[in-house]
C-alpha cells in the first residue's frame, strides 16, 4: 500500500479510560482510501473500545479523529454516519420484519410526493445497487427469512447506499461458513477497489493476513505496530499480539492424584456446533476449553450444562450413570452447574439481594413444603460470603450494587451452594480486577482439590495457562488439540488456537 493515496480516516493520540483502567493509550491509526486495514489483538487489548470510538458510540478522553477533512474531538453516531463511517457487526442491526429493499433504504425511502412511498422505485434502485455489488438477493424478501450471511450483505449494501467511505467490520465471519466467508472477502476486495476504506477486526489471523493491506496490532490498549499484510506472517503477528512475557505465567497446580473418570462424553455432536467430541474428565480436574469464536467451546459448555439438549447426538455419562439432561434443572439435579459469561443478562437477578441470588438454585434445601427458612438463608449467605471473601458482607444488599468481581463471586457461591460437583464456567473472570481474578482462581482450585470437576471456557491465554490442568483447543466443533499448560507460554497457546484454520482464504 502506497501512502500517497489520500487518507480516508485518521486517528491521532486517542486515549480512553474506564474506572481508572486505561483501555486505550495514545493510539494513532490511519486507513487510506481503497485500503483494507486489519485490526488485531487479544481480548481486552482495546479493539472493541477502539471500534466504539471510531463508530461514535463512545467519546475518547483525548485525541482526535480526522475524517472527511474535519477533525472531531469525539463523534456521535449521527456525526459518524454523516462523515461516511459505517459499522457492520457480526449480527447486523437490521429490521427483520422489513424487506431487503426497505432495510437498504431505511430513512431515505423514495417517495412519489405527499409522503407516499414509491415501493417500485425502491425495489428497482435496490436491485440495481445489489447488482452493482455483485450481490444476488431477493429485494422484496423479508429480511428475517434470510440467513446471517445475507443479512450482512444487506448491511454492507446499506452502508454503500449511505455513501459510506469507511466500513468497519467487526468479526464478520464469526457466524459464516467457508463459502459465505469467501464470498464476503470477494465483496470486501471489490469495495476496496472502488475506493472504500475497510477496517477489518477479527481473531482469525489467517483471514486478516489474507485480506489486509496493512495490519495494526493492539496490546494492552497501545498500538504495538503497523505491518504490511503482504510481508507479515502469522508467527510474527502472534508474538506481537502476546508480547514478551518476561514473567512466566504463575501456575499453582498442586499434584492431585488422578482419580476415576467423572464426566465422559462419547462422540457428542450438537446443532449448537459440536462435531463428534469425545472427552473424559476426572474428579478434581480443571479443564480449560478455548478456540476461536464459533469454534465450539461455548457449544461444549452448553451441552454439558444442559442448555443445549435438542438433537444432541452421542452419549454422556456422569459419575458412571448415563447423563442426558433435557433441561438445565435436570443438570443441576445431577450437580452440574453452568455459570454464564454474561452475568448481568443471564446470571444474576439484579433486583434481588446477595442472599437471594446465592440461594436461588437450591431453594429446595432451604425450604420445607414450599416454606422458606429465611434465617437459615441469611446464615448460608453470610457463610458463603466469608468463604468467597465476597464484599460487602451484607446478605441483604442488592447485587446490582456490587463490583464485577463480587458479582462473579455471588454467582460462584450460588453454584457451590447448589452442591455442584461439576462446574461449567464461561469466561470466569472476565471484567474483574486482578485481585478478584486471583481469588476466583484460588476458589476454583480449592473446589477441585475437594474433588469437584471444573470445565471452563476462556479466551484469556494467561488464565488458561494458570488455571487449567489441560487445555482443549476446539475448532469447527472438534477437539483439535490438547495441550498441557506446563511450560506453555501464551504465544504457543495462541499459535495453537490459530493454526491450520480449516477455512481456506484465497
Amino acid at each position, binding site marked *: 500500500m502506497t501512502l500517497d493515496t489520500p487518507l480516508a480516516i485518521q486517528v491521532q493520540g486517542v486515549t480512553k479510560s474506564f474506572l481508572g483502567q486505561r483501555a486505550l493509550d495514545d493510539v494513532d491509526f490511519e486507513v487510506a482510501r481503497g485500503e483494507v486495514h486489519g485490526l488485531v489483538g487479544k481480548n481486552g487489548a482495546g479493539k472493541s473500545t477502539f471500534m466504539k470510538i471510531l463508530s461514535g458510540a463512545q467519546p475518547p478522553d483525548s485525541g482526535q479523529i480526522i475524517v472527511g477533512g474535519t477533525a472531531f474531538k469525539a463523534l456521535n453516531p449521527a456525526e459518524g454516519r454523516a462523515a461516511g463511517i459505517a459499522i457492520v457487526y457480526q449480527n447486523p442491526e437490521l429490521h427483520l420484519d422489513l424487506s431487503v429493499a426497505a432495510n437498504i433504504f431505511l430513512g431515505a425511502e423514495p417517495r412519489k410526493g405527499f409522503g407516499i412511498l414509491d415501493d417500485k422505485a425502491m425495489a428497482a434502485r435496490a436491485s440495481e445497487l445489489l447488482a452493482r455489488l455483485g450481490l444476488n438477493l431477493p429485494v422484496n424478501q423479508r429480511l428475517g427469512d434470510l440467513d446471517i450471511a445475507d443479512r450482512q450483505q444487506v448491511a454492507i449494501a446499506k452502508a454503500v447506499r449511505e455513501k459510506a467511505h469507511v466500513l468497519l467490520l467487526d468479526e464478520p465471519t464469526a457466524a459464516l461458513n467457508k463459502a459465505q466467508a469467501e464470498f464476503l472477502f470477494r465483496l470486501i476486495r471489490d469495495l476496496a477497489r472502488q475506493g472504500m476504506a475497510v477496517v477489518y477486526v477479527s481473531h482469525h489471523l489467517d483471514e486478516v493476513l489474507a485480506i489486509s493491506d496493512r495490519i495494526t496490532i493492539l496490546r494492552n490498549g497501545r498500538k504495538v505496530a503497523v505491518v504490511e499484510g503482504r510481508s507479515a506472517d502469522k508467527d510474527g503477528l502472534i508474538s506481537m499480539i502476546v508480547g514478551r512475557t518476561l514473567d512466566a505465567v504463575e501456575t499453582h497446580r498442586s499434584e492431585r492424584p488422578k482419580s476415576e473418570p467423572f464426566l465422559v462424553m462419547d462422540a457428542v455432536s450438537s446443532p449448537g456446533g459440536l462435531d463428534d467430541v469425545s472427552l473424559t474428565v476426572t474428579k478434581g480436574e480443571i479443564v480449560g476449553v478455548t478456540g476461536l469464536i464459533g469454534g465450539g467451546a461455548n457449544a461444549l459448555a452448553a451441552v454439558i450444562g444442559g442448555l443445549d439438549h435438542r438433537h444432541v447426538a452421542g452419549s454422556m455419562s456422569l459419575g458412571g450413570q448415563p447423563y442426558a439432561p433435557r433441561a*438445565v434443572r435436570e443438570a443441576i439435579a445431577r450437580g452440574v452447574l453452568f455459570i*454464564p459469561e454474561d452475568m448481568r443478562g*443471564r446470571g444474576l*437477578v*439484579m433486583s434481588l439481594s446477595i442472599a437471594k441470588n446465592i440461594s436461588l*438454585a437450591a431453594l429446595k434445601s432451604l425450604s420445607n413444603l*414450599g416454606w422458606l427458612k429465611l434465617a437459615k438463608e441469611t446464615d448460608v449467605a453470610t457463610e458463603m460470603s466469608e468463604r468467597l471473601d465476597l464484599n460487602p*458482607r451484607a446478605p441483604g444488599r442488592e447485587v446490582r450494587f456490587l463490583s464485577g468481581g463480587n458479582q462473579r463471586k455471588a454467582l460462584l457461591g450460588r453454584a457451590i451452594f447448589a452442591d455442584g460437583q461439576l462446574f461449567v464456567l464461561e469466561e470466569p473472570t472476565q471484567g474483574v480486577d486482578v485481585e478478584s481474578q486471583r481469588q476466583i482462581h484460588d476458589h476454583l482450585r480449592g473446589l477441585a482439590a475437594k474433588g469437584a470437576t471444573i470445565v471452563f471456557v476462556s479466551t484469556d491465554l494467561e488464565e488458561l495457562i494458570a488455571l487449567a490442568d489441560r487445555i482443549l483447543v476446539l475448532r469447527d466443533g472438534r477437539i483439535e488439540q490438547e495441550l498441557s499448560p506446563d511450560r506453555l507460554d501464551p504465544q504457543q497457546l495462541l499459535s495453537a488456537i490459530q493454526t491450520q484454520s480449516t477455512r481456506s482464504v484465497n
Partner: protein
Amino acid sequence: MSSPTATAGKPANRKLGGLQGRDLGRYTLLIVLLLIVVVTAIGNPRFLSVNNLMNILFQVSALGIVASGQTILLIAGGLDLSVGAALSVAGLATALTIMHTGSVALGILAGVVAGCVIGAINGMLVATNRATPFIITLGTMTFLQGVAILMSGGSPINGTGALFDVFGLGDFLGVPWPVYAMFASILVMFVVLRFTTLGRYAFAIGGNEEAARLSGIPVRRIKIALYALSGLFVGVAGVILTGVLDSGLPSMGTGYELRAIAAVVIGGTPLIGGRGTVIGTLGGVLLLGLVSNSMNLLGVGANFQSAVLGLIITAAVLLQKKA
C-alpha cells in the same frame, strides 16, 4: 441517591427493605396523592369520619382482592388484563349455581374454581407462547366478556340468599365481611411473597427470567401457578361482589383490570417486574378509593372521575419509567 456503604466484617445486615434513595421515586405518586387526600380532608371534615372511611374500605374490597393477585403477576414480569371479565364470569358462575341448586356453598365453589381455572388457562397460554401477556390476556379478556354475556343471557341473575346476607349486609364488630376478605387477601399474598418458594420464584422470574431458568427454576410451571393463584383471588372477588350486589351481572367486573393494575403500579411495583410489595398495592387501592370518594363528596361527575383515574394511571406509569 444513597450509595452502598461497605459493612465488611460486620454481622448480617438484617434490614432487608431499607428505603433506598432511588426507591423514593417510585413512591412519588403515593406521596402526591396523600397530599391531595390531606387537602380534601381539611376542606371537608366528613371525609375522614369513621363511617366514610369504612364505606371506602367496603367500596374497594373486591378491587383489593383482585389487586393482591395481580401484584404477584407484575412482580413476575407478567400481567393479566382478563381479571375484570374473569371476575364477571366467576360471579355469574356463583349466581347461576345458587339459582339452580339453591346451595350457597356450591355457588362459592363454582365461582372460586371458575376464577382459578381461567387463571391457569391464561398461565398456560402465557408460558407456552412468545406473545406478550398483554396481548394474550387482551384476547382472553374479550373472549370472557362474551362468555359472561352468554352466561347471563344479557340480564342480571338475581338472588344469592345467604351470600347476600353475609357479604351484602353482614358485618363483624362493625366491619363489613368483604373488608375482612380484602385484608385476608393482602395478608395471604404478603406471606406468599415473603415466606414461600413460589413468591421467591416470582421475584426471580420477573427480575431475570434467563437467570431463573439457568438456576433450575421450572419457569413455565411457576408461571402457570402464578396466574392460577391470581385467578383464585379473582374468583374470590367475584363471589364476594356477587354477594354484595345480591346478583351476578355480565358487567360487574368491567374496569377492574385497569384499576387493579393501577393500584399495583401506584404501590411501587414496576411494570418490568423483579420487585414490589403487596403492602404498596394496598396503599394504591386505598388511594384510588379515597380519591374517588373525595370526588364523590365534592360532587364531581362520573365522566370527570374517569378522566382523573386515567390521569392517575398515566402519571403512575410515567413516574415509574423515570424511577
